[in-house]
């Protein structure tokens, strides 16, 4: 049926045509914004990969830094080891602490206190990383000097709200029927919590922990204050300041020497790959554990 056969009332008016045009324009803008975000990710990852992959070598992964000597064969092994030690220690500090907070909030606390602690966790989550750096500087570094331990503590403060928050979310997903069943067969509350409820949440807790690791592995600001004045040897000892990947990237990027820039790109590439895989792994874990909890609920 062509437009000519329509009655005047059925014929699209100019006004309708304009409304449809506005709609199409807005839909196009929404498509465009999504494309811009995906493109931004693609461009950043591609830039880092293109420049970083070519500077990547066996030496880069296994040899340590030799500052002020661009001709020496060197790598960032010391930074990789340092990041591993510091992030590992931070996880050991934040994980039990965060899980306990979540257990208290979800299983024991009255409603008022629950809201209060939630808010405190939000505030802690919102404190800029650089302020956390100054906090640990005042708390530990002024008296005892920089150390890997101080760096780990700073990162643990950043991880704590993330770990507590995700654990609270999964604890809330555990069906009450499980709790009632455990109490019903006469198990005390603590065994119900630790033996029945908590094991249900392992997937979710691991997801939270992985996301928190991915977040703090790339943190630079708090480590500048706590673990940046380093000797460039490879060391596992957190009593001394340890070099880390993000601090190394920051320092190398400020160097005028182009070979240092190449090393910064390679380090950024390794860090980015680690973080992308950790985030994707966490996402996969999350879907898996949610499916499992869903089954338990049925």
């Amino acid at each position, binding site marked *: 049926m062509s437009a000519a056969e329509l009655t005047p009332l059925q014929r699209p008016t100019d006004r309708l045509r304009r409304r449809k045009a506005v709609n199409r324009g807005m839909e196009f803008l929404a498509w465009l914004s999504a494309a811009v975000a995906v493109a931004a990710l693609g461009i950043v990852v591609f830039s880092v990969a293109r420049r970083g992959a070519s500077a990547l070598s066996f030496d880069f992964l296994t040899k340590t830094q030799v500052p002020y000597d661009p001709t020496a064969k060197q790598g960032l092994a010391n930074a990789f080891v340092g990041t591993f030690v510091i992030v590992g220690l931070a996880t050991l500090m934040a994980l039990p602490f965060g899980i306990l907070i979540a257990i208290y909030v979800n299983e024991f606390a009255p409603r008022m206190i629950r809201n209060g602690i939630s808010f405190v966790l939000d505030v802690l989550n*919102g404190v800029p990383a650089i302020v956390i750096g100054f906090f640990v500087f005042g708390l530990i570094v002024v008296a005892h000097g920089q150390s890997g331990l101080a760096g780990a503590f700073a990162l643990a403060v950043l991880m704590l709200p993330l770990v507590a928050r995700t654990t609270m979310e999964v604890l809330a997903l555990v069906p009450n029927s499980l709790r009632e069943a455990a109490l019903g067969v006469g198990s005390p509350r603590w065994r119900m919590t630790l033996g029945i409820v908590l094991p249900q949440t392992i997937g979710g807790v691991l997801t939270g922990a992985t996301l928190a690791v991915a977040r703090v592995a*790339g943190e630079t600001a708090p480590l500048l204050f706590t673990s940046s004045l380093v000797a460039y040897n490879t060391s596992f000892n957190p009593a001394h300041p340890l070099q880390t990947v993000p601090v190394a990237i920051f320092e190398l990027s400020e160097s005028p020497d182009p070979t240092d820039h190449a090393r910064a790109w390679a380090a950024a590439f390794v860090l980015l790959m680690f973080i992308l895989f950790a985030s994707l792994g966490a996402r996969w874990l999350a879907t898996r554990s949610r499916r499992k909890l869903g089954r338990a609920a049925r």
Partner: protein
Amino acid sequence: MHLGDVLLQGAAALASLGAVALVVLIVYKVVEGARLSLSTFGLGFVTHVGWDPVHLKFGAGSFLFGTAITSLGALILATPLAIGIALFLTELAPAGIRGPVTALVETLAAIPSVVIGLWGILVLAPLLRDHVDPALHSALGFIPLFGPATYSANVFTAIIVLTIMILPIISSISRELFLGVPSELKEGALGLGTTRWEMVRGVVFPYTRGGVAAAMILGLGRALGEAIAVAMVIGAFTGISWNLFNPGNTLAAMIALNYQGASSGLELSSLIYLALILLVFSILVNLLAQLIVRRVARRQGLAST
């Protein structure tokens, strides 16, 4: 009561108390570190423009200005983009690409700031200086913000970098809000013959306005506190310039860049004073976001009964 119950509840309560104590301790330690500067300069520090380690005269004025202009700039660029992304993901995207695009946008949030900073200064900044900055200057040069472009490390680069960093925060919160709009309302609007955009403007936006404002505030909080990425691209200039293509500095970036070079106790204490200002901002931002969320929740609770 069982001994185990007492132990577990005690440990859990202690841990929670620990979190509260941690926040109190953070505030206390930062105030303590800033005390020397607080007693020397008082509140005048906040507005004094200049950072002079030789004559020991410090002030936060130019960094407050830089922080305001970079975070507001980033917010202005990121908000419409983020809302566009959220609308795309909730209303337009075909089912097959919805999941992957959501994952990709959230991955953007996982990129460490030092990596964005490295990319910002070595790739983005030269590109903007050679192509975008001069074009903006010649088109919009009558506005003082778009002055002559000479430096590659400048405030505008910092704004773009911050936009990339806060975009995923605002868009993922907005997406969840848009998903929460009852489909009866949306279908009702469409059934009255509105176009999809008119439905969004008439139903989705009013329904989620408060939540989106809270999301913007959280994005602003992130932008205010970002230190490393901004430090790498902003060019470290102390002073006030309305030209976005000049270097500048922000509170967080100033701290990151000068902490190791602080030459006196007073300078270090003044840097901690800057951190104190940031801390106050971050707490205010959180309070404000909470307040908005609570008000919206109350209103929607009323609407649904």
